[in-house]
């Protein structure tokens, strides 16, 4: 509501001061209205310069001119806690993302030329070279149901890898309904587009998942979730196991997508079907091997590639005894 009010004010102001330079943002605040009215009496030469009248507005305007990314303020300036500015920045960012998406659509899928996408055979999807890469992941543990496992994620040595570490505790929470407990998980955030639209990954050109990790000998589980709007499908995922060797050497794990089995609400289902790769929402790593103690997993990067030697489509057959309906 406040935004619409400001919008209307802004357009009104724009009509009033035609001298305003086009680089200024069309969404102006109420304070800007006053600023503009005062500027009619005293024309300002370049709006980019910080004006002497209102230091705060000048600082804000200086921000706009710099076209700085959201939420990163230079260390010299004092961080301005202004609700209007935050909303303004957010809107600007979303519109910029929308513009990028529309422009990218003309270039090709995801902004890369078509020939590059079609011929690509190995793609790095997640890498861990900086703090912003860690923000793409969420870590959870059974603390949400009252257990005692802890898990943390941080950058590893020399900012070259990510370290997921913690303690697993399979002590069941005393809430009367859980008899087992003890899991930790690291799940990737769903990629978001303009206006927080949910996007998905398209890995249909690839057939194997590639992980470069260094573990401590514990068996992990890799879960892939598909992007769906159907509520009943929200708990469905495809999983497979990832066995770490332990030791100081980096381990390359290749898991073909045909090996992932289907599970719903944590149980393997009788009717198994292949993982379809065109709308992947997120990937996750879970540790729930019923052994209490500390653990760690160092991840270098996660990629997908095409293994030309792997021709299997799906590894699990359906059984006529368990699901006779499929074999009529």
């Amino acid at each position, binding site marked *: 509501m406040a935004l619409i009010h400001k919008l209307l004010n802004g357009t009104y102001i724009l009509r009033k001061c035609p001298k305003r330079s086009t680089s200024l943002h069309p969404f102006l605040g109420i304070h800007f209205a006053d600023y503009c009215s005062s500027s009619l009496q005293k024309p300002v030469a370049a709006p980019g310069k910080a004006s002497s009248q209102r230091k705060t507005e000048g600082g804000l305007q200086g921000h706009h001119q710099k076209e700085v990314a959201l939420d990163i303020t230079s260390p010299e300036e004092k961080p301005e806690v202004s609700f209007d500015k935050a909303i303004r920045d957010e809107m600007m960012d979303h519109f910029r993302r929308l513009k990028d998406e529309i422009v990218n659509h003309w270039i090709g899928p995801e902004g890369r030329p078509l020939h590059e996408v079609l011929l690509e055979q190995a793609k790095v999807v997640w890498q861990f070279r900086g703090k912003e890469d860690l923000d793409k992941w969420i870590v959870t543990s059974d603390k949400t149901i009252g257990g005692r496992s802890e898990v943390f994620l941080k950058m590893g040595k020399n900012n070259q890898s990510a*370290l997921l570490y913690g303690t697993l505790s399979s002590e069941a929470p005393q809430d009367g309904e859980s008899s087992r407990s003890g899991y930790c998980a690291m799940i990737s955030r769903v990629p978001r587009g303009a206006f927080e639209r949910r996007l998905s990954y398209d890995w249909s050109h690839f057939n194997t998942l590639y992980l470069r990790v260094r573990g401590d000998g514990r068996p992990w589980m890799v879960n892939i979730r598909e992007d769906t709007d159907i509520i009943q499908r929200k708990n469905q995922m495809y999983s497979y*196991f990832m066995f770490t060797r332990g030791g*100081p050497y980096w381990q390359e794990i290749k898991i073909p997508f045909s090996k992932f089995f289907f599970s719903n609400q944590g*149980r393997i289902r009788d009717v198994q079907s292949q993982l379809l790769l065109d709308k992947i929402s997120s990937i996750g790593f879970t540790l729930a091997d019923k052994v209490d*103690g500390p653990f760690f997993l160092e991840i270098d990067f996660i990629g997908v590639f095409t293994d030309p030697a792997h021709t299997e489509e799906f590894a699990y057959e359906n059984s006529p005894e368990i699901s006779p309906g499929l074999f009529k």
Partner: protein
Amino acid sequence: MSWVRAILLARSLSRGWGGIFGATLTGAPISEVPPQTPQSFHCGAATHNSELSLVPGPPEPQRKPIKALSPYEDLFRQAPGVERDKASFVRTVQNFGQHNVHKRGHVDFIYLALRKMREFGVERDLAVYNLLLDVFPKEVFRPRNIFQHIFVHYPRQQECGIAVLEQMENNGVMPDKETEFLLIQIFGRKSYPMLKFLRMKLWLPRFKNINPFPVPRDLPQDPVDLAKLGLRHMEPDLSAKVTVYQMPLSKDWTGALDPTQPHIVGIQSPNQQAALARHNPARPVFVEGPFSLWLRNKCVYYHILRADLLPPEEREVEEIPEEWNLYYPMQLDLEYARSGWDDYEFDIDEVEEGPVFAMCMAGAHDQATLAKWIQGLQETNPALAQIPVVFRLARSTGELLTSSPGLEEPARPPPPEGQEEEDTLQRQQQGQS
């Protein structure tokens, strides 16, 4: 006359069932008789617990819940001299059938027996599971007409059967023909335990051998053997040699290992030996550790001897002249690619780390023990005498180390929360043998 018998059996069983209800009503906490939600039926019913426990309350203070003993607890309490093992467990289970012919309260007893299996050490014994399934009265729970088929016939007993099979699955026990026959006899062919049995037969073999680095089920108890197993597990080079540098003093009447002489077992491959021989003595090598390695459910700690990565200008690529061997090429560059456009490389610089020269597992994690390891290494690597060795050890307690970020950060200056000791240079000039 069989129907009279069936009615009598049913009456006594319902009385037994009332006994179970009585137990729950008298205030036995719910954890004693775990409520089996419809999830266990593999029906795909909605979860109950997801909605209820989304917002957990504040953690309760640590107090032991007052557990009322379940009715058959005293059956499992052994005489003071009797050890808890398979024989006594089997005896207890067989005694239950003898105490009441009509097997009153068998569901409760079976749940309790499942919980007690771990104490007696029989959780991976198929014969014991079959014996436990034998406790069920036969032929009573089989549905006989269409209505009994439609509705879940004897749901508590079916849940109990599923619980037995689920514990088998959790412990990796594969059911056999005897289990199948028992299940058919008890529950019938179309029952839920039978369905679970079919699923186990389908899925357990599929996942039995997927571990590319298998660890044996029964880990050796001797720490030296365990160390050898762990080192072989970690080292991908099969030609690596495992050497025991120091054996612990043999266990005498005290029965405990002497802490002043822990075991030291090391491993080194010929490639690593050659690399260490080529190493420039001006650059130090580091002993880092301890890092944890989990073998099934045992955690062992190891140390590594490694050097830092050479800066790119000092790296030398060993070139083999082409005419060295005329019979076959010394450098085979077989590419995976089918033609010029194939490119299976990832567009990222992999993490590069310095070379590892040797690994060891020791009973203690202090510098004195590791110094002995270095001395032992010097016998096979005489070049090590000239190279300075720096010890970068994290805080060591000897017990199971809690998760400390210090474990993976031996190269950093001590962070405020972890404590690390970094020793000064140690010149091993005196070549001790």
